[in-house]
């Protein structure tokens, strides 16, 4: 079952192929979660159950969706507690309840495999020397099941000579950075981190220290929320150009994802669009009446995934605003839907690995 999820080219399914691939799997997941997760069943039944999908055209929009916030207030799982391998928790400031996501072995394996096939489209098969805009302690605690730790651990598979560039107080470790750059001088490197942390503790720190450009080419992959940077008027273009100049990198890719649907990583392509992989999809909905919106209209992002088997996370309404840009038509050559995330729903709670760290650092309470 797992292999079947990943035997299609990750960005190679057009609209028709994708519907054929995804719809039956989403139907099966809806049925299975309805049968096995009592709170989920009650929610769906309160809305009149779920309709059988007969028409593949436009069928994606007919799946019921639940808000990501439900995972903070409810324990939603579809397997017995003995089957749960790990419970992931979302980032949270001290005043917020974290989301709790129960993974069994199969779902955890699917997520790992999903990340591999997605990242190979951007990193190729070789493992580059990897520097992280974080401190080593974030993954050391064996009971750390935070989204931030899980995110980092997942990405570690893609690099080698893992070097953490920050100390525990988030100060740049100059010597570690210089040693890493020297060890890999003349070669491309892979830099990873959460967006606010990369900006504040790496890019800005290197600028202040007058060190740049530090590397001889490479790729930066970052994700986890833009709100804090938007507050400081740092947009994507600014972020990219400063990252390239200061770090000496040639490629910068943002990713959009969430702990509630881990494995659904929407990567930003070379042309600035977020792409849905073969086993996931996205719908933009009008917040007034939840009707699906076409290209160019801003609405609330709904994400769908064929991966979550142990918890009902296959069709979720996020707290993000986004806009569809097109389907099967990106100049980067990847098929599927492409979209942009433009912000948060006003008055949504502060979320995301990047922003909650920023908020905690500021000692702000939400």
């Amino acid at each position, binding site marked *: 079952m797992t292999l079947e999820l990943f035997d299609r080219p990750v960005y190679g399914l057009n609209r028709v192929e994708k519907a054929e691939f995804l719809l039956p799997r989403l139907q099966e997941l809806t049925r299975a979660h309805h049968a096995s997760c009592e709170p989920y069943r009650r929610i769906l039944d309160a809305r009149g159950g779920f309709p059988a999908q007969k028409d593949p055209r436009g069928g994606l929009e007919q799946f019921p969706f639940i808000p990501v916030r439900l995972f903070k207030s409810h324990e939603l799982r579809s397997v017995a507690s003995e089957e749960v391998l790990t419970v992931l928790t979302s980032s949270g400031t001290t005043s917020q309840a974290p989301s709790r996501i129960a993974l069994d072995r199969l779902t955890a394996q699917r997520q*790992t495999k999903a990340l*591999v096939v997605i990242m190979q489209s951007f990193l190729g*098969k070789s*493992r580059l020397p990897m520097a992280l805009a974080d401190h080593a302690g974030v993954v050391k605690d*064996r009971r750390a099941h935070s989204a931030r730790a899980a995110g980092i651990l997942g990405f*570690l*598979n893609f690099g*080698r000579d893992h070097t953490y560039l920050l100390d525990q107080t988030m100060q740049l470790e100059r010597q570690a950075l210089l040693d890493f750059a020297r060890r890999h001088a003349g070669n491309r490197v892979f830099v990873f981190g959460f967006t606010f942390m990369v900006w504040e503790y790496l890019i800005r720190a290197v600028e202040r220290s007058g060190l740049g450009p530090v590397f001889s080419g490479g790729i930066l992959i970052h994700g986890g929320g833009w709100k804090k940077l938007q507050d400081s008027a740092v947009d994507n273009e600014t972020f990219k150009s400063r990252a390239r100049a200061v770090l000496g990198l040639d490629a910068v890719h943002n990713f959009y994802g969430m702990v509630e649907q881990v494995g659904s990583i929407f990567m930003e392509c070379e042309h600035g669009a977020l792409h849905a992989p073969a086993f996931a999809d996205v719908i933009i909905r009008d917040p007034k009446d939840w009707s699906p919106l076409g290209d160019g209209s801003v609405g609330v992002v709904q994400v769908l995934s064929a991966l979550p088997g142990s918890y009902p996370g296959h069709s979720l309404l996020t707290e993000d605003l986004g806009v569809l840009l097109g389907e099967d038509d990106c100049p980067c050559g990847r098929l599927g839907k492409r979209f942009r995330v433009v912000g948060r729903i006003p008055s949504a709670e502060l979320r995301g690995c990047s922003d909650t760290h920023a908020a905690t650092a500021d000692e702000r309470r939400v």
Partner: protein
Amino acid sequence: MEGNSEKLYQTFAAALGVDRSLVTDDLQYNKIAQWDSIAHMSLVAQLETAFDIMLETEDIIDMSSVKKAKEILEKYDVRF
């Protein structure tokens, strides 16, 4: 090759922080507390150093048991 088998078992024991006697072909990822995703990264690094190879990402993901590790390392010309 006796030597490589023993080297493999000892690398596992060191990386996972377990007694050598615990390391058999049947030992599996995530089935003991010590072999979790954090230890796995350390295991990969130590195997690469011990056998002077660089593993592909897919092989890192697939290395779910000691037995599987032998199969994978054989792709890198390590004989057991």
